[in-house]
C-alpha cells in the first residue's frame, strides 16, 4: 500500500484503477466472466443431482417436430389458421346476440326520450350517435377478442413463440434483419405499440429500427375485427355453409401472410438502402416448454387484454359516434357534411378500390383502428336511416345491396387495413422508442404510402381484368 492519506479521494481511486488496468493482461475482462462461470459450475455440481432419462425427453421430442424441416412451417400455419377458425366460429353467435340486445336498448331509450319530449337532436346525438358507436364497438369487437386472446396467450405461455422465431430466422437473416423480429411481430398481434416496445429485445440499433418500422404490418387486435368481419361477410358468403368458416379463417391467414411478406420486403429494402448493413449476431434462448395455467390465462387475457383494449376502443368510439352523427345531420346546401366529405374523398377512394366513406372512417379512426368498421357502418346508416343490423346477413345486405360493395372492395379494404399507417398510440410509441421525429414520420407515412400504392394496383388490375 502506498497510500499516505487516510481517506483516498475519488480522483485518486480512479487514477489507481487506471494504473492497475494498464498493468493487467488484456484478457482480464474475460477472466472475470470465466471466474463467475467456473464458480457457477462448481456450485451447481454440488447442489444438483440430475439423472438423465434414457430416451429423449418430452421437450426434445416436441422440439424435433415443431422445428423439423417437414413439419415446422405447416404446423405454424395450421396453428395460426386454427386460432382464427375457432375465433370466427365462436364469435359469430355472441356477436349477433350482443348486437341484437344493444340495438333494442337504443330503440327503447330513444323512444323513451321522444315520449318525454326531448328535442330530436338530443335523442339523435346521444342515442343514434354516441350510444350507437359504443354498441357497434362492443358487439363487433368483444366476442372475437375474448376468444382470440386466450388462444394466443396459450401459445405464448407454452413457449411456442421462441420456436416460431427460431423457425423464421433464416428469412429474417436473408433480408438483413434479426430473428427476434418474429417475437416482436407476435407481440404486435396483440398491440402494435406493445410490439414496438418489445423491439428493445433486439440489441443492434439498425435491426431494432427495422423491426420498429415494420411492426405495423402485423395486424393488431384493433384491426382483426375488420379482417374477421370481412372474412365472414364476403369470403365465407361465397362458399357453401359447410366450409364457410374455414374459408373465412383461410382468408385471414392469407392477410397475415401478406403482412409477413411486406414485413420481409420492407426490411429487405431498408437494409439495402437507408439502413444499410448485414445481419448482425443472433442469439436466442429456447426456453423449456411449460404447462400453461388455464385459469391464469383466462384471467390475464380477458381482464388485461380484452377489457383493456375494449375500453380504449370505447373511449375512442363514443366521441367518434358523436362526430359521425353531427357530420351526418348537419346539412350544407342540401347535403350532409358526411356526404360532402365522402363525395370529396370519393374519387381517391374509388381509385384504390374503396369509397369516400371508408377513407373518412380511416381519418376519424386515426386515434384507434378498432373503430373503423363501426365508423363506416355509422356513416352509412347515420343519416337518419333507421336500419336494424342485428345479424351479419343484414350487414351484408347493407354493404353489398345498398352501398355497392364488391369482393374487390372487401379485398382492398383488407389490404388497406393491413398496410395503412399505425394508430396514434403506436406513432407516439415509435417516437418515444427512437427519439427521432424523422424515423417517426417515416414509420407513419411509409405504410400509408404502401397501402395506397398496393390498393391502387390491385383495384386497377382487377378492373382491367374483370
Amino acid at each position: 500500500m502506498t497510500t499516505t492519506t487516510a481517506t483516498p479521494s475519488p480522483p485518486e481511486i480512479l487514477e489507481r484503477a487506471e494504473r492497475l488496468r494498464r498493468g493487467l493482461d488484456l484478457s482480464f475482462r474475460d477472466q472475470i466472466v470465466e471466474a463467475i462461470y467456473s464458480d457457477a459450475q462448481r456450485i451447481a455440481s454440488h447442489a444438483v443431482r440430475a439423472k438423465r432419462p434414457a430416451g429423449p425427453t418430452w421437450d426434445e421430442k416436441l422440439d424435433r417436430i415443431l422445428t423439423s424441416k417437414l413439419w415446422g412451417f405447416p404446423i405454424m400455419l395450421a396453428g395460426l389458421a386454427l386460432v382464427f377458425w375457432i375465433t370466427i366460429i365462436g364469435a359469430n353467435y355472441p356477436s349477433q346476440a350482443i348486437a341484437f340486445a344493444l340495438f333494442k336498448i337504443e330503440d327503447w331509450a330513444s323512444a323513451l326520450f321522444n315520449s318525454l319530449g326531448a328535442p330530436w337532436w338530443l335523442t339523435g346525438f346521444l342515442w343514434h350517435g354516441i350510444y350507437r358507436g359504443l354498441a357497434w364497438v362492443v358487439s363487433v369487437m368483444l366476442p372475437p377478442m375474448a376468444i382470440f386472446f386466450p388462444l394466443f396467450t396459450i401459445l405464448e405461455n407454452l413457449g411456442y413463440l421462441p420456436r416460431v422465431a427460431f423457425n423464421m430466422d433464416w428469412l429474417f437473416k436473408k433480408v438483413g434483419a434479426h430473428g427476434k423480429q418474429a417475437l416482436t411481430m407476435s407481440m404486435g398481434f396483440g398491440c402494435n405499440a406493445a410490439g414496438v416496445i418489445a423491439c428493445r429485445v433486439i440489441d443492434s440499433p439498425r435491426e431494432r429500427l427495422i423491426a420498429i418500422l415494420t411492426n405495423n404490418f402485423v395486424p393488431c387486435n384493433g384491426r382483426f375485427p375488420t379482417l374477421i368481419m370481412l372474412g365472414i361477410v364476403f369470403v365465407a358468403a361465397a362458399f357453401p355453409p359447410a366450409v364457410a368458416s374455414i374459408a373465412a379463417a383461410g382468408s385471414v391467414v392469407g392477410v397475415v401472410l401478406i403482412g409477413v411478406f411486406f414485413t420481409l420486403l420492407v426490411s429487405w429494402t431498408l437494409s439495402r438502402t437507408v439502413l444499410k448493413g448485414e445481419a448482425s449476431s443472433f442469439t436466442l434462448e429456447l426456453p423449456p416448454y411449460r404447462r400453461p395455467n388455464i385459469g391464469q390465462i383466462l384471467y390475464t387475457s380477458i381482464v388485461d387484454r380484452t377489457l383493456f383494449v375494449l375500453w380504449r376502443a370505447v373511449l375512442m368510439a363514443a366521441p367518434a359516434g358523436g362526430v359521425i352523427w353531427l357530420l351526418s345531420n348537419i346539412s350544407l346546401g342540401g347535403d350532409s357534411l358526411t356526404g360532402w366529405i365522402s363525395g370529396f374523398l370519393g374519387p381517391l377512394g374509388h381509385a384504390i378500390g374503396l369509397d369516400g366513406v371508408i377513407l373518412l372512417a380511416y381519418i376519424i379512426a386515426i386515434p384507434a383502428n378498432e373503430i373503423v368498421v363501426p365508423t363506416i357502418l355509422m356513416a352509412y346508416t347515420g343519416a337518419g336511416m333507421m336500419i336494424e343490423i342485428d345479424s351479419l346477413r343484414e350487414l351484408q345486405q347493407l354493404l353489398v345491396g345498398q352501398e355497392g360493395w364488391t369482393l374487390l372492395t372487401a379485398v382492398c379494404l383488407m389490404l388497406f387495413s393491413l398496410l395503412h399507417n399505425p394508430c396514434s398510440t403506436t406513432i407516439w410509441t415509435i417516437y418515444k422508442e427512437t427519439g427521432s421525429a424523422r424515423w417517426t414520420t417515416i414509420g407513419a407515412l411509409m405504410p400509408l404510402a404502401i397501402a395506397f400504392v398496393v390498393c391502387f394496383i390491385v383495384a386497377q388490375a382487377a378492373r382491367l381484368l374483370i
Partner: protein
Amino acid sequence: MEPSLAISLAAAAALALLTLWPRRGLLARWRRARRLAERVIVEDALKHIHARELRGTLATPESLAGKLDVGVRRALQLISDIQGRGLIQSTGPGLRLSPEGRKLALRVIRAHRLLERYLVDELRMPLEAIHATADRREHTMTVEEVDALEAQLGYPQQDPHGDPIPTSAGTLETVEATALSDWPIGMPAKIVHLEDEPPEVMTLIVGAGLALGMQIEVRESDEQRLALWDGESERELARLAASNVFVSELPHPVQPPARLSSLKPGEAGRIIALRCEGLNRRRLLDLGLTPGTLVECAFPGPAGEPRAYRVRGALIALRREQGDEIEIEPFTVSVEGSQ
C-alpha cells in the same frame, strides 16, 4: 406603398433571423462547418505524419499534399500552422510529431478504429465500406464520446482489420508482423492484420476467404500468386494482395479450423477460444460460452439454420456466423454418456 414596405421589412427581419439566429442560423452553421473543415484537415495531416513515422519513412510536404489532395503551397501553409501550435517538431528533414501532436493523432486513430468496430459489430456494415464512414465521423467526436463508445462496445482491443485500438491513456500496441509475401514457404503462420487500403485489394483478400486469426501455411508461390493451406483446403491469393496480409509465427503446425458451426446434430465439442471482439464476445460469454465449456449441437432449424445448441443445460440458438466465431475441439464421447 405601405403594404409592400411592411412585407419587405418583414422579409428583411426574417432573413436576418435566419442568418443570425444563434446556433441554428446560417452564419452559425457556416462557422461551424468552417471550424470542422479546419479540424478535419489538421487531424488528417497528423494521422498521415503518424502513419509515416510508424512505417519508418518520414512524411514530407509533398507526401502530405498528395495524401490530403491539396497543393504543395497549401500543405506548407498547413505545416507551419501545425508547427505554430507545437504539434510537430521543427528539427530534421522529415516531419515528426511532437508528444502533443502524437497524443492528438492517437486520439483520432482511436476514434477511427472504435468507429470501425461499431460499424461492423453493431451496424453490420460490410468491411470494405466502413473506412469512409469512420473517416468522416472520427473528426466530430469529443474525447468523452469516444470513451463512452469504447465502454459501450465492451472494450475491444482490435479494430476489424486487426489493428490495435489506442487506449484512452494514449498507448498503442505495436503488432509484430510480416507481410505474407515475404513469409517463408512451409512455415506455419497466423494472420494478425489485414490492410484495408486500397479497398480493391481488400476485396481480393476477403474473396480468397482469408480472415483475422486464421492459421495458414504457404505451400507454393510464384510471380503471380501464392498457394495457401489452412489445414483443410487450399486457397489461392494474388501476390499483390499477399503484401497486404500480415502474419506472425505460429508455434505449432497448422490445424484444421474446427468451429462450433461444423458440429452436426448430436455431436459435441469443447470451446477453445472465441474469435470475436467487443460486444459480440461479451454476449457469447454471457450466454455461458466460455472457454472450456462443453457444447452439444441439438437440432437445426427447418432451413438448416440457425442451429440450437445445448449449453450448460439451456438451449441456445445461434446463426452460422456466430458458430464460426467459436473455436472448438471436437468431443468424441457422447454428451449423454458423460453426464
